[in-house]
């Protein structure tokens, strides 16, 4: 590995090209002497050959272009807090910043990264979008779609050698029974998020959890992950309550008058608990819990102390620089989805730098291999779980103002990597990569 690269190499190429061009002019001049029909034929053939040769050489001098597709959701999800409302370029902005980073490196290596963006409506079939982008020469796809749509997208690419990066879907099943050898996951799983939170609550000895679950499928999946985490790390769910989504607007002119009466009523009569843990990915009620609980208890999960891959307040391990670069480029703060997309685009860049190629097979092989590690401002390198292509990563615990802690917590040991104390581990996996 290593070697002198970049500008020196490029200028040598140009010198070679100049020499070739000069000598071809010379040859062309000599040909003009010929006056016969055969001479004219020779002249034509030679000219054609020269044009071909020059075209080929010019192509060689151009930087290697690596094309990336970003396929995101057309709709934005509703949130309780205005502060959490997703920006229009949520996710894709992260990928764009990584592309800039890749291109800064690329200018030293004669590599260029470009990106095309597409949006797919919720529930629609993304097949046509994927095929259209693939026809533009795109082999790498950063995808923020629901689990089912992601699987359809990947299926559309089967046999075409496309590589997918799941930056948005946190469903464990995509890394388990529905795992694929051409889908890499930069988004953490629900079980990783739940384990990251559970380790901290156990460290705090907040062992008795009152679990409040939303009525949507995703909420139930997060509750499953939290229940599993409690079991693994020695916490106890004293009771579980379901908060039914009866519909209704998240913002009303009458305001919060009723909510501060409803929440204590909903939580009354619960057994003694140390913490209220909420599973509400659908953003129906969790953000209403802090400061409104019946008993004065902290809230964690979908509100209060939230486990996530990234947060606007994260500034450790050089993260400050990334946050500054992001702010300068997009005039807003960086979200978890931005970070997950940034990681995907940087993985492509990092691999292309190392293997000096834009070939999807070569890049995928490098990412799956033992030499790959991503520097992602999390205090240690991020690597891929080779059994299901999930990016190992620490989980940040954010309260909306600061980073309270980062899991894995001290003392949660693992024979291979402490990051594998988060989420479903190799011995339990249902994934068979194909």
């Amino acid at each position, binding site marked *: 590995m290593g070697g002198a690269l970049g500008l*020196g190499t490029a200028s040598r190429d140009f010198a070679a090209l100049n020499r070739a061009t000069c000598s071809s002019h010379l040859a062309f001049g000599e040909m003009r002497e010929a006056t016969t029909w055969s001479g004219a034929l020779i002249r034509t053939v030679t000219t054609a050959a020269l044009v071909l040769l020059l075209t080929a050489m010019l192509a060689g001098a151009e930087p290697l272009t690596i094309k990336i597709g970003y396929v995101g959701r057309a709709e934005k999800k509703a949130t309780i807090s205005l502060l959490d409302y997703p920006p229009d370029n949520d996710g894709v902005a992260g990928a764009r910043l990584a592309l800039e980073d890749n291109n800064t490196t690329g200018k*030293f290596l004669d590599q260029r990264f470009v990106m095309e963006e597409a949006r797919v409506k919720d529930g629609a079939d993304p097949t046509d979008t994927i095929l259209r982008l693939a026809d533009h020469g795109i082999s790498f796809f950063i995808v923020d779609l629901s689990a089912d749509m992601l699987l359809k997208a990947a299926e559309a690419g089967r046999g075409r050698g496309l590589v997918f990066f799941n930056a948005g879907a946190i469903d464990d099943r995509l890394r388990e029974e529905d795992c694929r050898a051409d889908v890499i996951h930069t988004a953490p799983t629900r079980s990783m998020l739940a384990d990251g939170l559970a380790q901290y609550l156990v460290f705090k000895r907040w062992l008795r959890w009152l679990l409040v679950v939303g009525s949507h499928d995703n909420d139930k999946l997060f509750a499953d992950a939290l229940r599993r985490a409690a079991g693994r790390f020695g916490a106890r769910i004293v009771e579980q309550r379901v908060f039914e989504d009866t519909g209704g607007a998240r913002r009303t002119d009458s305001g919060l008058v009723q909510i501060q009466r409803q929440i204590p009523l909903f939580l009354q009569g619960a057994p003694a608990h140390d913490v209220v843990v909420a599973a509400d990915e659908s953003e129906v009620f969790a953000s209403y819990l802090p400061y409104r609980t019946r008993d004065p208890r902290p809230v964690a999960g979908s509100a209060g102390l939230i486990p996530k891959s990234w947060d606007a307040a994260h500034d450790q391990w050089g993260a400050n620089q990334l946050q500054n670069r992001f702010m300068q480029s997009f005039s807003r703060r960086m979200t978890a989805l931005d970070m997950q997309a940034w990681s995907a685009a940087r993985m492509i860049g990092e691999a292309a730098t190392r293997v000096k190629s834009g070939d999807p097979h070569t890049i995928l092989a490098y990412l799956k291999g033992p030499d790959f590690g991503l520097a992602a401002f999390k205090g240690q*390198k991020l690597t891929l779980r080779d059994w299901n292509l999930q990016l190992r990563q620490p989980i940040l615990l954010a309260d909306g103002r600061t980073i309270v802690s980062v899991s894995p917590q001290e003392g949660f040991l693992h024979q291979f990597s402490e990051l594998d104390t988060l989420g479903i581990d190799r011995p339990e996996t249902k994934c068979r990569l194909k």
Partner: protein
Amino acid sequence: MKPGTAMWLRTIGGICVAFVLAGNARAYKAYVSNEKSNTISVIDTAERKVVGTIKVGQRPRGIAITRDQKYVLVAVGDDDTIQMIDTASNRVVDTLPSGPDPELFTDDPSGRLLYVANENDNTVTIIDIERRARLGDVEVGVEPEGMGLSPDGKILVNTSETTNMAHFIDTATHQIVANILVDARPRFAQFKDDGSELWVSSEIGGTVSVIDPLKRVVKNKISFTVPGMRQEAIQPVGIAITHDGKTGFVALGPANRIAVIDGTSHQVQKFLLVGQRVWHMAFTPDEKYLLTTNGVSNDVSVIDVAALKVIDTIQVGELPWGVAISQR
């Protein structure tokens, strides 16, 4: 002679030797930047005690002493400048115009120019120290950090943390003449005094690349395995190499250890347990001692270079990061 007498004589002899040594130990000043306290702790290296504390700007990290020994320069990243501390008065007397968020820097052999890595804008700034003037910028990779100058002053090496390269910059033309790919998040660059090797540490990659500065290729890569320690905790940062080039020291960050490396074979000889999250190092000018900054335990470890032993720990300010030692 009775055995008892011999022991007595030995003891008295020992005391005398110790006395003479203490009398001979040159006192240098070590300046330690405390990233969190916004102060510099001044250590008397003979007494191994903090003898003064200097208030500086926000987030002091990179620190060095000018060749004429008149000033301590400290990069205060969150104030986007480099402060100059008068070594006579221990006061901040002036600033140098770096780019945004300066972190590490190095001066040229004449002591006239300062080369500064600015983490926030992908440039290396060149400063005329005497005139306090910014002479120009060189565009490098993403998040420039480590700075090393070849002993002849002709080649400046800058490492960029996200681009993962050591950029070779011709100091006469300010042009990049080579880019050498190293492992992830390169943080520090150190030439041997004879210019025969350049060592670059990769914090996330967990390695030190040994580069041949003439051929401009990585000729060796040093990795570290500490028994019972997870690999992710091994994060090489600061590097110090003895004048004769025979021994190298590499700070391993959260592994809380300094690796001692044979300068010729590049084999790891030994690990020295220091404080928590060790960042950077500096030798006393006589090379008897090596001081390390331990970020999380708020102290400085003193290593006896000949014995390769940690002999003392000095409490400093909060989150010590860089260290520079006066030449007299």
